[in-house]
């Protein structure tokens, strides 16, 4: 017991020290606090994107889903690859525009390109409303693991409180730089934890080969779609692939990790790195499926990994792996708290409350927002129960809607502000209505988020084609930026005489 308490203490203290040390490099500018002065290096970018993207949802939710619903979560291999590809294809363009026009938030890009205050506010509201529930599940998952790993010595409410206290301290002083540094530790820990947990636990059933043979004999429905409950078929397979990848990618925490990158070259490597990391899900396959054999009938499936560890692994190893799970949660929570505080500070405070605020004041407001959102998520975690994956997907379906106006902004000069605004409204209303109001939540088996995207994109295209933009200067400014981007990174796509504008140098 003492050993596991020491592991938990180390898990809490080491990131705190790393965060505080990294903070010594910080400057008191908002650009440094929110996007590290757009100078984040390759190792930090990979780990902070990967650890932010992989959350309690991945660490606990994946095991739980293999355990209850069969192989549906295998679609995660593809959604990781799609996420990586989007980080290259969309992310690099967003990065380029962010660097050129000094963006810090999703609303900055949308509000600027669509030249619309209403859209700017709508995007900020969507990012805030749909990020907080996802933040809540990180806290729930992480605090639960700490509670179990400590043998109940650290109760849930205290674990959650400690969790946020530590995050607030190092983010307060170091901003995104401190998060990126701690995410290197969290990231390494979580990938190790997922892989080793699966390998170790499958060993309790005679190893992977023996485990699969037993499962094929005892519960073959766990090995094929639509799973043992018969409700996780192809439609849901495809829905998860789209919603999780796009929803997570459009979260404000990932946007900041596009703006922060120092060199455009890194974007080309990220699809490979993020895709490769998805192999860690094989660990979840082993854990979840072994659980079906050794611990059937567990009431709360999210507990399958901790329960298996406590029952079958030495106490210290179990504590270490659970700390890795808490790392998955913490590395996402820290980025989300920081991102929503960035949105509040820049999109609401700086733009509407105090446009004259100096750098020091902006950073101060950003820090106060950290505390406010942490408190909100803490209260939610204590009061709103729910399965991690269920809440997580509902939240992701909301942020996923932002992909439509984003693609419009980076690729299409006819994209119209009215189309972006009403498309988003239609998409969000569809998601909320199908999730909470309609008698059938998944028409044709497709998730509410997919229906939202279909209606959102349709409205966007139809209205854009029907209306003409009157702000030709804005449209031309972006067309020029896109042309410069192509000249810089895809010169073969330009005609020989299409020279980049002088501003291309500034955006490098």
């Amino acid at each position, binding site marked *: 017991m003492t050993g596991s308490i020491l592991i938990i203490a180390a898990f809490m203290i080491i990131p705190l020290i790393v965060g505080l040390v990294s903070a010594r490099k910080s400057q008191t500018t908002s650009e440094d606090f929110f996007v590290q002065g757009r100078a984040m290096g390759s190792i930090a970018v990979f780990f902070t994107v990967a650890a932010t993207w992989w959350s309690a949802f991945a660490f606990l939710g994946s095991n739980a889903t293999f355990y209850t619903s069969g192989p549906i979560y295998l679609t995660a291999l593809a959604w990781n690859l799609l996420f990586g590809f989007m980080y290259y294809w969309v992310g690099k363009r967003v990065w380029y525009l962010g660097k050129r026009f000094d963006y810090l938030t999703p609303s900055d890009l949308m509000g600027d390109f669509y030249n619309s205050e209403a859209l700017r506010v709508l995007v900020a509201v969507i990012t805030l409303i749909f990020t907080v529930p996802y933040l809540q599940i990180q806290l729930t998952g992480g605090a639960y693991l700490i509670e179990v790993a400590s043998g109940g010595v650290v109760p849930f409410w205290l674990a959650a409180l400690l969790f946020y206290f530590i995050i607030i301290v190092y983010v307060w002083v170091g901003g995104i730089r401190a998060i990126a540094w701690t995410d290197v530790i969290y990231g390494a820990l979580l990938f190790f934890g997922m892989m080793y947990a699966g390998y170790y636990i499958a060993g309790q059933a005679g190893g992977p080969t023996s485990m*699969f043979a037993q499962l094929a004999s005892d519960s073959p429905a766990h090995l094929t779609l639509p799973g043992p409950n018969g409700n996780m078929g192809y439609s849901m397979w495809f829905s998860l*692939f789209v919603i999780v990848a796009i929803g997570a990618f459009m979260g404000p925490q990932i946007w900041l990790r596009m703006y922060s990158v120092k060199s455009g070259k890194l974007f080309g490597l990220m699809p490979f790195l993020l895709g490769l990391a998805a192999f860690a899900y094989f660990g979840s396959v082993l854990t979840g499926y072994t659980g079906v054999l050794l611990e059937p009938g567990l009431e709360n499936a999210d507990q399958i990994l901790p329960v298996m560890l406590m029952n079958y692994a030495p106490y210290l190893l179990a504590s270490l792996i659970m700390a890795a799970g808490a790392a998955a949660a913490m590395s996402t929570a820290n980025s989300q708290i920081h991102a929503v505080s960035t949105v509040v500070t820049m999109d609401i405070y700086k733009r509407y409350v105090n446009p004259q605020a100096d750098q020091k004041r902006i950073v101060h407001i950003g820090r106060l927002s950290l505390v406010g959102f942490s408190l909100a998520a803490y209260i939610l975690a204590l009061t709103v129960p729910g399965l991690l994956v269920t809440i997580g997907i509902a939240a992701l379906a909301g942020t996923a809607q932002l992909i439509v106006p984003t693609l419009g902004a980076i690729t299409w000069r006819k994209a119209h502000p009215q189309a972006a605004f009403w498309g988003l409204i239609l998409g969000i209303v569809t998601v909320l209505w199908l999730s909470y109001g309609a008698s059938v939540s998944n028409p044709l088996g497709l998730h509410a988020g997919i229906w939202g995207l279909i209606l959102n994109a349709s409205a966007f295209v139809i209205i854009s084609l029907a209306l003409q933009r009157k702000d030709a200067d804005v449209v031309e400014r972006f067309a020029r930026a896109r042309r410069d981007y192509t000249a810089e990174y895809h010169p073969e796509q330009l*005609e020989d005489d299409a020279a980049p504008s002088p501003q291309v140098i500034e955006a490098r």
Partner: protein
Amino acid sequence: MRKRFTTRKVAIYGSMLLGFLMLESPLMLMANKIEPMVMGVPFFLVWNLVWWGFLTAVFLYAYLTNWGSARAPSTGGKR
């Protein structure tokens, strides 16, 4: 006028499309079975791992070849 897309770029994006189709289109249902197991691993899992490996390799190749784009002339950061 130069060619808009290099052959290499078409190959990269074509391979990518093939990989995603095998993982996410209804074609994947033809692999939705346990047998034949491959080295003790169910066929559906093997199918997913194979195409995941294929796409990961495509992404590595894409990175090494600048995603099939011609490299911009080296200007030392200035144009």
